């Protein structure tokens, strides 16, 4: 008996590890109200990254763009398809290729991690178009990717530092305090842009403000670890942070839980998270840094539909309405704060304020 139990134990361990590796996510495809008058000429496939639909963040923002496009008849709902990456993202390239083989006219990779794969795959499908949200696929050999001058690929990129500058200023204006916090997902330059803008924005209002900074981890799973997100948020609240801003994907759910426990404010990212969190959390979401992935996705679908696809990088900053901040929480984000933020926003658009990209430059 003891022997057979011993034989089972490692199997259970193995199973639990696999189960943990395949961490929960999911959700079903959204149901936009596709009308009868829609453009039957194009089919759109969207390859989502780890977290998939229902991440209340990045993938959902991309989906909103697609649903808007469906609602406006740019594409018919039955001609769209989603495919989510697996829990470790190991099948990103395979999914893109499956959509390409499926004959979709526009294939959107939602996330920078699709860049190398799309750079490699796109030349084999010259009649189809590819877009990478946050991507660098068109950087080509300058970024040591195999292919240059791709005429059927575009990178949809954003000036996250500009949007983060505004929410940093919002945090400093709101609390009038000495300490605020930043919760980052994966360490590296991508999230560094958020941190840099946020810190710079807060210091623009209050040069003496201290910004606590915590990162969840060093690999992409950092964007899918709400438990650690909550622990680090609680730590920063305990250290005196009055408001915390997160750029941590699905891990950000942990921040909102911690905010409820601490009774303090939090700032969302990518989507207007005020609209997405629970009723209990809602009043504590001061604002969100909006990365208008939906605008970018909508625009690129429109381009393909009109035959005006723009290859190369398309940059969406404050001026292009590619980033913004949300004003949904009118109880906390009062009119005087909004007025001041819009002033600052205009200064950035006019070039009177230059927002740094690297935390080291702040």
């Amino acid at each position, binding site marked *: 008996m003891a022997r057979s139990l011993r*034989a089972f134990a490692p199997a259970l361990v193995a199973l639990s590890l696999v189960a943990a590796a*395949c961490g929960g996510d999911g959700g079903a495809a959204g149901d936009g109200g596709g009308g009868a008058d829609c453009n039957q000429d194009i089919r759109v496939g969207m390859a989502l990254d780890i977290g998939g639909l229902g991440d209340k963040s990045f993938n959902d923002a991309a989906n909103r763009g697609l649903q808007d496009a469906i609602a406006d008849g740019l594409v018919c709902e039955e001609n769209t*398809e989603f495919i989510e990456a*697996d829990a470790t993202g190991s099948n990103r*390239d395979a999914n893109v290729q*499956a959509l390409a083989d499926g004959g979709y006219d526009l294939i959107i990779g939602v996330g920078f991690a699709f860049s190398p794969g799309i750079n490699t795959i796109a030349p084999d499908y010259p009649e189809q178009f590819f877009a990478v949200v946050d991507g660098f696929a068109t950087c080509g050999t300058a970024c*040591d990717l195999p292919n240059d001058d791709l005429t059927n690929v575009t990178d949809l990129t954003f000036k996250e530092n500009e949007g983060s500058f505004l929410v940093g200023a919002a945090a400093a204006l709101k609390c009038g305090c000495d300490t605020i916090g930043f919760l980052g997902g994966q360490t590296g330059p991508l999230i560094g842009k958020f941190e840099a803008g946020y810190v710079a924005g807060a210091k623009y209002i209050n040069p003496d403000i201290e910004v606590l900074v915590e990162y969840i981890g060093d*690999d*992409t799973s950092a964007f899918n670890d709400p438990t650690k997100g909550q622990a680090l948020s609680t730590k920063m609240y305990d250290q005196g942070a009055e408001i915390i801003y997160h750029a941590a994907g699905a891990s950000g759910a942990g921040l909102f839980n911690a905010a409820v426990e601490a009774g303090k404010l939090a700032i969302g990212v990518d989507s207007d998270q005020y609209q997405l969190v629970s009723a209990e959390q809602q009043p504590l979401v001061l604002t969100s840094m909006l990365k208008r992935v939906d605008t970018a996705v909508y625009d690129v679908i429109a381009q393909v539909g009109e035959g005006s696809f723009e290859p190369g990088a398309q940059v969406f900053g404050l001026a292009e309405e590619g980033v913004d901040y949300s004003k949904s929480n009118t109880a906390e984000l009062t009119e005087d704060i909004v007025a001041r933020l819009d002033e600052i926003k205009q200064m950035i658009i006019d070039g009177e304020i230059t927002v740094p990209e690297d935390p080291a430059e702040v």
Partner: protein
Amino acid sequence: MSGPRGTKLVARREPAPWVESLVGQLLALLASLLIALVAGALIVIAYGESPLVVYGAILRFSFGSRTGVGYVLAIATPLIFSALAVALCFKGGMFNIGVEGQYLVAMVTATWAALELDVLPGGLHVAVVLAFAMLGGMAWAAVPAILKVRTGAHEVVTTIMMNGIAISLLSWALNGPLRFTNAPEGQNVDLRSDPFPPTALVGDLGKLFGVSRGAHLSWLLLLGIALAVAVWFLIRRMRLGYEARAVGQAPGSARAGGISIGAVQIKLFLISGALAGLTGMQQILADRGYLPQNYVSQLGFTGIAVAFLGQNHPIGIVFAAILWAILARGESALQLETDVPREFVIILQGILIMTVVIVYQVTHRRLRRRELGRAAIGEQDAAEPAPVGAVG
């Protein structure tokens, strides 16, 4: 299974025990697969879809085209290495959960060799890169091995902790010495290493068979199969393998028989680490050609599941890895062709592991009873708690 051989002086028409065990194992695997598929079918029916459509979609996606097959084999390749690493330690009664960390560290050492030793000619360079991968994995496995033998620290605990350190080490290397430096000013590029020179890359195997290069099928697959045979040979035909089995199944007898348990465990762990080190090579030497920050992780843990599916038999592991890869690819197929959520595949994989363990236990007891019936050496002391101790 791994019972004593060579006790049948009156050998008849009976098949050799290893044939018997291999056939028995294959049957057990097929039986568990069948049970898992039936259980999965019930779930699909409960979901309101046809199991035939769902399984058909999965199979068509993997076997409907040459490229599909290429993808399956490319997904299976790293799993063969990681599962072999797990299985080898398991033969010696140890549980190497550190394959994960061992292959991450190996990716760092291999990346260094790929970037710095580029004066070497083509064939030699890639061989040296692979050797550095094995050394990296070995070095990372040496720590828990020595801790186990010297201090009795349990390898499950130490290897898990080493995994955490490995993630940070890799991240440090990517942020520091191995960081990609040529990106144009202001260009948003994923954090990664410089690209490897072509001499460090493994060749594409797929183009010989008309597989799209997107699949990145490489001759690492052949290396994996060759190493599976080598591990089988080691376990079955070499002294170390015999000692490993003795230590794994009956440490009491092994020690009484004069086997240095500590020495055997260290050797097994080192070889396991070397095998583990090759796990990450598919992604850096075939898929990408550089070390990416968003590398595919969890292959070490998946290797544990694959080793179980293959019942720790090296050849069984090759098939189990392919089976796992078919299911993994099914995640994409379900989303494109059915309304069943992709998580169904994860459920199916879980059911499969459980049924394999249960069916295996049943057949194992049968085989064992037959072996005992053949007047084998008593292994009663197997039930005795296994002392891990300072020997050698």
